[in-house]
C-alpha cells in the first residue's frame, strides 16, 4: 500500500495522537515535558489539590532560568520572591522524582538551551513547556509547543494535552545570505514580511538552501521566534546536521540504539511532494541586517532604512500602530535608524546566547571597546555555554572590550531577575521581544537585532551597520 507523501508535522502528530476528545480536539501525547520555576509551581499546587501525581516523571525535565541573578548565582537570592520560586521548584522535583538541572549541576541554563545541549530534544518527538519560546526545539524536527500553566498541569498529570491540529506553512529561504546577515535577521525579516499574527493557526516549516546550510544553533534562533510571528510551532526537518549535533549527548541514544534512532528520525522528515497549506519563498540575498524600531517584533527595518513615517501610509491601522510605537520609542519618523544613540547593549536570551553567537561576536570584538556611557552585558544562555566560552577565552574578549560577562539565565530579556533597564533607556538587544516595558522598566525601550549588530551598537554607542563597523564587505 502506498500512502501519499506527508509532512513532518502530520507524521509526528499522528504518532502522538491518542484519541479525539468530545469537543473535537485531539488528546496529544507529549513525549518530553520541560518545566521551569515561573509557570510550574501553580501547576504542582493544582495537582496536589486534585490528588494527582506526575504521570511520567522520567519524561519531565526541569531547570531554573527566568529569576536567576546573573551577577552571582549564589543562594539565597536577594529577592525573597525569587528565592521562594527556586525552592518550590526544587521541592516539587524532589517530591515527584523529576530530573532537575539545578544551579550546582553545571548544566543549568535557559530551558530552551538545556534541552538541546543534553540531547533531550530529539527529532520526531512532541515537546511542551510553559514558555512560548518552546518553539526553539522545533529546530530538531520536533513539534514543540508553548503552553499555559493549566496545560502544564495536564501534561504533568497525564503526559497529554488537548489541542487542535495546525495547518502547515512551508517557508523557503533560498540562495545565500549576504555577509554580516545572520539567522536573527532571517526571522526578523520573516516576521516583518508575514506579520506578527501571520502565523496564527499555522506551524511554520522552515527549509530551503539557507536552512540546509544552517547549523543547529542558527536553526534554533529562527524557530525560537516563530511565536513572534504568531505561529505556535516552527520546525526544520531533521538531517545530517541534526544527527551530528545530537551524537554523544547525555540523553542521546548510544550504541545500536543510536543507529535505530537515526533511521527512525530520518523517517519523520517531510517527503517530496507532501501537502502544505501555504508556501512562502524568500530569497536569502534580499534579507538585510534587520533592526526593530517599534513595540512589536514585526516592526523591523533594514539597518539602512529610515524609521517609518505615519503620514506616508493610507492604512489607518498601520498609521495608528506607527504613531503609538514612535510615541513610546521616542523616535523620529523619517530619520535613519542608524545613528540612534543607545544606553544599554544586551547579548543574551534563548534566541541568541549560544556558543556560536559569542564566538562570532568575539571574532570582531577583539581590540574594540564598548563606547563610554554604554552599559554592555553578555549573558551566556547556559552554564555549559559559559564554560565553553571560558575555555576558548571568549569571555576574556568580552571583558576586555568592556562587557560585563555574566552567569547563565534569561536575564534582561524579560527582567524577572535584577537585570533591568532603568527609566527610558534604549537597549540594543539580541533577545526576542520589544514590547512596551519588556526589559523591566515600564518606559524602557528595546531594539531587537543580531548579536553582531548589538556589538556594533555597543562599540559605537549608537545603532550601527555591523558590516561597516567591523569591515565586513557588503558584496
Amino acid at each position, binding site marked *: 500500500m502506498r500512502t501519499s507523501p506527508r509532512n513532518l508535522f502530520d507524521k509526528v502528530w499522528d504518532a502522538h495522537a491518542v484519541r479525539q476528545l468530545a469537543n473535537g480536539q485531539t488528546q496529544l501525547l507529549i513525549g518530553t515535558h520541560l518545566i521551569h520555576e515561573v509557570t510550574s509551581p501553580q501547576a504542582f*499546587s493544582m495537582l496536589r489539590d486534585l490528588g494527582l501525581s506526575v504521570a511520567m516523571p522520567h519524561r519531565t525535565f526541569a531547570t531554573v532560568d527566568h529569576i536567576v541573578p546573573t551577577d552571582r548565582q549564589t543562594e539565597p537570592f536577594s529577592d525573597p520572591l525569587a528565592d521562594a520560586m527556586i525552592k518550590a521548584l526544587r521541592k516539587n522535583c524532589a517530591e515527584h522524582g523529576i530530573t532537575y538541572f539545578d544551579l550546582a549541576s553545571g548544566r543549568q541554563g535557559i530551558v530552551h538551551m538545556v534541552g538541546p545541549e543534553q540531547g533531550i530534544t530529539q527529532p520526531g518527538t512532541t515537546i511542551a513547556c510553559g514558555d512560548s519560546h518552546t518553539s526553539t526545539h522545533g529546530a530538531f524536527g520536533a513539534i514543540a509547543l508553548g503552553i499555559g500553566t493549566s496545560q502544564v498541569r495536564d501534561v504533568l498529570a497525564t503526559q497529554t494535552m488537548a489541542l487542535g491540529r495546525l495547518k502547515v506553512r512551508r517557508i523557503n529561504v533560498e540562495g545565500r545570505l549576504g555577509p554580516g546577515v545572520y539567522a536573527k535577521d532571517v526571522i526578523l525579516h520573516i516576521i516583518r514580511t508575514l506579520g506578527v499574527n501571520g502565523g496564527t493557526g499555522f506551524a511554520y516549516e522552515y527549509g530551503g538552501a539557507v536552512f540546509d546550510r544552517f547549523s543547529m544553533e542558527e536553526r534554533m534562533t529562527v524557530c525560537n521566534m516563530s511565536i513572534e510571528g504568531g505561529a505556535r510551532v516552527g520546525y526544520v526537518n531533521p538531517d545530517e546536521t541534526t544527527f551530528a549535533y545530537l551524537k554523544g549527548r547525555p540523553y542521546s541514544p548510544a550504541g545500536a540504539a543510536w543507529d535505530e534512532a537515526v533511521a527512525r528520525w530520518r523517517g519523520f522528515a517531510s517527503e517530496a511532494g507532501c501537502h502544505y497549506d501555504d508556501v512562502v519563498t524568500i530569497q536569502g540575498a534580499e534579507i538585510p541586517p534587520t533592526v526593530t524600531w517599534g513595540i512589536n517584533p514585526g516592526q523591523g527595518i533594514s539597518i539602512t532604512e529610515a524609521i517609518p513615517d505615519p503620514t506616508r501610509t493610507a492604512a489607518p491601522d498601520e498609521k495608528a500602530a506607527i504613531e503609538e510605537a514612535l510615541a513610546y520609542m521616542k523616535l523620529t519618523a523619517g530619520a535613519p535608524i542608524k545613528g540612534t544613540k543607545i544606553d544599554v547593549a544586551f547579548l543574551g536570551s534563548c534566541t541568541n546566547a549560544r556558543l556560536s553567537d559569542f564566538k562570532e561576536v568575539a571574532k570582531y570584538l577583539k581590540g574594540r571597546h564598548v563606547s563610554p556611557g554604554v552599559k554592555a552585558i553578555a549573558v551566556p544562555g547556559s552554564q555549559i555555554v559559559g564554560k565553553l566560552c571560558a575555555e576558548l577565552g571568549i569571555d576574556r574578549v568580552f571583558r576586555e572590550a568592556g562587557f560585563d560577562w555574566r552567569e547563565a539565565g534569561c536575564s534582561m530579556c524579560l527582567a524577572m531577575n535584577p537585570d533591568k533597564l532603568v527609566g527610558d533607556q534604549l537597549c540594543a538587544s539580541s533577545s526576542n521581544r520589544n514590547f512596551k516595558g519588556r526589559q523591566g522598566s515600564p518606559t524602557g525601550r528595546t531594539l531587537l537585532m543580531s548579536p553582531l549588530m548589538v556589538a556594533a551598537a555597543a562599540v559605537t554607542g549608537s545603532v550601527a551597520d555591523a558590516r561597516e563597523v567591523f569591515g565586513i564587505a557588503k558584496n
Partner: protein
Amino acid sequence: MPLAKLTSITGRGVTVPGNDIDTDRIIPARFLKSITFDGLGEGLFFDARKATAAAGQVHPLDDARFRGARILLSGANFGCGSSREHAPQAIQKFGFKAVVAESYAEIFFGNATTIGLPCVSAARADIARIEAAIAAHPEMEITVDLAAQVIRFAVQTVKLTMRDSARDALVHGRWDSIGELLEGREAVIATASQLPYLAVPQK
C-alpha cells in the same frame, strides 16, 4: 465538581483599545514572581494604567464610569507574546467574565478557554458599534450569548464567532480538559508503547 456551562454572559463593558496587545502589557513580568496566581487582578494592565495616569488621563480600567465592567473589548491579535497563563488569570481575577476582540493570539486563546474565560471574536465594525453604545451609555448591559452565537446590546444584535472546539467546551461545561484527559489513560499507555523514546530508562 462539574464545571459551569458557560452559555451566556451578561454584564457591562469596557474597551481597552488597540491591536497586538501583548501579554507583557496585560500583566508585566514582575507580577509573575510568585508561586501562586493570587493577587494578579491588581497587576492587570498595570504599567499602561500608570502611564495613562502620569499623562493626566484616565485609563478605561480606572474610569469610574466603567467600574464593575464584566466584558472586556479590544482589537486584533489580542494576547500575543508570552504563554503566561497569568494574563487570562489577571483578566479573570480583575472581574471580567468574557473578552470580545477582533482576533486572538493562539496560546492566549487556549489558556483563557481552559480557565473558563470565553474569548469571542466579532467583526471590527460590530465591535465599534458596541463601543459606541458603551460610550453613550456605560451602564448598558451586554450579553455574550455563546449558545446563540450573538452579542446583544441595547436593542442590537451582532454575530460572534468562536472556534467550534472552544465554544463546544464552554457551553457544555468541559472547558477544563483535565477530567477527560485522565479518562484516556489506557489509550495513552497504548500510544506511548509505540514510541521507543518514552520507555523508562534501564538503570
